[in-house]
Structures are given as structure tokens and as C-alpha cells.
């Protein structure tokens, strides 16, 4: 099994989720994140004091997938999350050792 972590632009979340659903993905978990990268940040000024805001809002999404699906998943995310503008984000793929579905105790591929 593989574990895919993707960092994307927040407003792309729904599109990406829909695209993944279409290729049969049934579960994923997201967290709100802030990203630092080439995209740079901006400056906020409050009563004369300037603060550099280096981090921009991102969505961090993770999903466990069967080995054979991983390429398709990466492609799907890339396709749906791309705007072509700097800051579109990254996808990381890890080896996943074990997966368990808490409700049933099912393991690994049955747990996804």
C-alpha cells in the first residue's frame, strides 16, 4: 500500500475530491495547513508596524491507496489541483506498512 500526502490550494479541494471519487477513491483526510514556498507571502501593516506573512493557506490532504492505484491518484490530483500558477503545491508518496479500519478491525487493503 501507498500513502499519498498532497498540499494544494484551498479552493481546489472540492474539485480534487470529486476527481478522486470518480476514480473510485472512497476515503481521505484533510487538515488546514499553511505553506511556505516559492510563491512567497505578503506584508500586512497594522498601525505602522509591518509584518511579513510568509505562510499562505493550503489544504493538506492524505489518503492511503492500493499500490496499483497510486499513479492514477497522483495524476488525478495533479490534474485537478493545477492552476498553472506558482503555489499549486506538492504531492508526496510514502510506503505504508499497515492500515486498520477501527470499526471492524479489518486490515490493509480491506481497510481502505
Amino acid at each position, binding site marked *: 500500500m501507498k500513502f499519498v500526502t498532497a498540499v494544494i490550494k484551498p479552493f481546489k479541494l472540492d474539485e480534487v475530491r470529486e476527481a478522486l471519487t470518480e476514480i473510485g477513491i472512497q476515503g481521505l483526510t484533510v487538515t488546514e495547513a499553511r505553506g511556505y514556498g516559492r510563491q512567497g507571502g505578503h506584508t*500586512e*501593516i*497594522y*498601525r*505602522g*508596524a509591518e*509584518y*511579513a*506573512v510568509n505562510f499562505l493557506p493550503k489544504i493538506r490532504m492524505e489518503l492511503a491507496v492500493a499500490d496499483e492505484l497510486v499513479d492514477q491518484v497522483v495524476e488525478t490530483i495533479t490534474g485537478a489541483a493545477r492552476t498553472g500558477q506558482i503555489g499549486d503545491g506538492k504531492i508526496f508518496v510514502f510506503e505504508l506498512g499497515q492500515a486498520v479500519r477501527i470499526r471492524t478491525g479489518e486490515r490493509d487493503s480491506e481497510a481502505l
Partner: protein
Amino acid sequence: MTTTRIYRPAASAAALVGLLAAGPALAEEAKLDTGDTAWMLTSTVIVLMMTIPGLALFYGGMVRKKNMLSTLMQSFATCCLASVIWMVIGYSLAFGGEGAFHGGFSKVFLTGMTADSMSGTIPESVFMTFQMTFAIITPALITGAVAERMKFSALMVFVGLWSILVYAPITHWVWGAGGFLAGEGVLDFAGGTVVHINSGVAALVVCLILGKRLGHGRENLAPHHVGFTVVGAALLWVGWFGFNAGSAVGANNSAGMAMAVTQIAAAAAALSWMAVEWLRDGRPSVLGIASGAIAGLVAITPAAGFVAPGGALALGAISGVVCYFAVTWLKLKLGYDDALDVFGVHGVGGIVGALLTGVFASKAIGGTAGLLEGNPGQVWLQLEGILATVVYTAIVSAVLIKVIDLVMGIRVDEESEREGLDIRLHGESVS
């Protein structure tokens, strides 16, 4: 039935106009007027609202999230403490008698304020409570300068002593019977000196002695919720009509004109702050326009019963720009950490307003002419009022905070400051 004092002699000409218009002759001055009383009851209510929740939110939104509750606490507890102190001793020192510098002890614990004591056309109980709301907001304003790093215990001690040693006497000077500034003709309709210059200068002194926040100038100390600040500013604005129009001590022409010019000056200052910020920084900030409105309200405070609408428009526009530079340039230049800009907005705004009252005062409105109507002397008088206040409050506030520092310490330890005052001082946190 006893009538104990004449209120705010500086405003008397304006009040006279109002009273004449309203009909009843001044001779029967001890007779209760239900309309005047209704308006003063209302004014009291909305001036209290200025501090809680108004100021509490205005300040609470500007600090970091970890200090929000402690900031609300500073306003709320100041409200409670200043109320009790006013009842116990403050009111007496301010309005208990006719000394040049303070009013004495004859009204300690409100002795002698009976069910039928009058103060002009309103019950003395209403006058006392109205004034109490001023005694509440003035020290509460100071807390903005020390936000995010002062010990709550030390702050309470300071607020208590300062209310007695600084606020009550200065109130007497300007508004008390026999007060030396009022006697000389200094114009302060609703508290430009007593409330704003006083708290602004005390705030500067205290924050200088307290020192800067950890990470000041390096870390991001930005407001955690400008939304709360806007709501607070709006409630301050709304309540300010009690402050300014209420200072006419009746529902009369003077109150009406004070209300009109207050609205005009606030709006003009908000727009002028916004304009200069837009030009310099390329965008108008929400914190900016709210700050501008408060600056205008501060500046019109001494002038409210004395200037005409046109004067108010100019006064407001000027004060917005001046306070903008006080807050964004002067403060950076001098490098002090007046966390929420009490000096920049209330101190500077109060001084600008007091001076411009001398410039724009109109005989037709409040009975006194200003510079523009050919009376340059009024500007000098205003300057005298400013100086007396600045010197006294600066010295006494400095001594007070130094002594408290020696006795009990005024600053939280570094770890508490890092983790936040909410959890460390009050054991609570905003989710």
C-alpha cells in the same frame, strides 16, 4: 432638597442657550426636568457601554489570541474597581467641595446624596453615576498601553491609586466648583483633557517604564481579530453620544449640536485617516478607518459644545491625519511600545482637539469665540489646560508605577508572556 454644585462651568454659556430655548428659567434650577433626566439616564447607560463591552472589544481584538481574555479582563475589572472607588472617595474629591485643587472629603461614601438631592435639573444620583462612567473609562483606556505583558494584580493597584490621585483631582480642576482650570476659562466640553490627554499621557509614561513586549519589532504581534476591534470601535462611537451630548447635562440645544458635530468629526477623521493610509500604503485598512473614527471622536470631545458643523468637519479631518502620523511614524521613530496606541490616539488626539477647540470655537454655538473669530487668547488658555494636565499626570503616574514596581513587580515573567496571559494569569483560554 439640596442642589450642590454648578456643573461644568465652561459649558455654561452653551447650557444657557439650551435652557432658555427649553423654557424654564434658570432661577428654578433645582426643579427636576424629566426630559433632561431621561437623557442623562440614557447617557449614563451608553457611556458605560463604551467601556464594557466597547473598549474591551476594541482592545481585545487588537492583541494576540492568547491575550484576548486578559485584555477583556483589564477593562472589565477596571470598570468594577473604578466604580467602587468613585463611590467611596473619587466623587467626593472631584465634586465634594470648592477647593482649587480638589473637592474634599464631604461626600465620601456618597454621604449626603439623598433621594432628592439635585444637580441642576437632574437628580444628583444621576449626575454622580454619569460622572462615574467617565471615571471608569479613563483608567480603562490606559490598559491598552500595557496590554500583553503587565501583571494583573499590579494593574489593579495602579488603577485604584491612579483613580484617586490623578483622575479625581484633574476632574475637579476642570469641572469641579472652584476648579482652577475652569475658573480661567479653559474649554473642555466633555473631557478632552480630563479623560483623553490624561489617560494618553499616563499610558505613555507607564508603558515606557514597563518596557516593550517580547519580540517587539521582530515577531508578528498583529491583531488576532480586527472584527472584534471594529465592533468595539462602533460601540465606542455609538456610546460617545452619551459622552459628548450627555455633557450638556440635559436634552437641550447644546446636546443636539454636540451630537451633530460629534458625528461629523468622527466621520471626517475616519475618512481622512483612510485617505492618507490609502495614499501611503496603497490600501485602506479596516483597523485604520476604525482608528481614525476614534481619533476624531477624541478630538471633538473638548470641542463638542463649542464648535459649528463646519468647524467640526475641519477639526475631524485634521485630527485623523495627525493621529495617523502619531501612530505610524512618531511611535516608530521614538521606539516605545504603546501596544494599542493609547498615546497616539487619545493623548495626541486629545491635544489636537483641545488646541483646535481654541481655534474653531464659535460664539454663536457655545458662547466663546476662538482664534478664527478673532480670539487668539483662547488658544493660549487651551495650551495652559493641556500643559497642567500633561505635567501632573506624567509625574504622578510615573511615581506611582515606579513605587508599585518596587513593591510587587509590574511585569509578568517571560514564560507567561510567551504562553499568554489568558492561561497564565486567569487560567482560561479562548478555543
